[in-house]
């Protein structure tokens, strides 16, 4: 059953990658990158469940943090303002 979970999440990742490659405007790509980050957090948790290794959850936490910071930076870049405002 866990193989089916992996395949479903891989399909999700490829749909996000399709939008990143295809997306007509820059905000489309930013949304897709954000969603890809969240899906990968779930993927790491699932790998941690499958292998009974603890540190995959640490990877998931760090990935969630970095994905959030990256998304905020891209959104600020789209808005065309600096970080001070």
């Amino acid at each position, binding site marked *: 059953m866990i193989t089916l979970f992996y395949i479903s*999440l891989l399909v999700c990742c490829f749909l996000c990658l399709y939008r990143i490659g295809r997306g007509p*405007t820059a905000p489309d790509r930013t949304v897709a990158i954000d969603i890809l980050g969240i899906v990968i957090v779930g993927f790491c948790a699932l790998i941690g469940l499958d292998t009974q290794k603890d540190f995959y959850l640490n990877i998931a936490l760090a990935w969630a943090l970095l994905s959030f910071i990256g998304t905020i930076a891209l959104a600020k870049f789209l808005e065309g303002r600096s970080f001070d405002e």
Partner: protein
Amino acid sequence: MSDTIGYILIIIGILFDIFGCIGLVRFPDVYNRLQASTKCVTLGTILLLVGVAMVSASGPTSAKAIICAVFILITSPTAAHAIAKGAYASGVKLWEQSVVDKYAEQKEK
């Protein structure tokens, strides 16, 4: 018992993830894609993490999964709001069949 509930939560979460990603591909403009995919994928991943926390036997793994779920619950709407504001400020047009544009109404006042 706890295992069964956990696996059911994981299945529901992955279904929500798939629906969100299909919405990301199928919807017509940035704002529709944002609202479809962000809400669905946030709920789906939180359900997945709660399911992992229920299935996994060890305490620290469950605690980390719950912390991760709370973190995503806080940050994902924030990021979506920032992207929506950034997209509007960078001049992306709404889909031609969209009916309401509150940002433009606010600017006119």
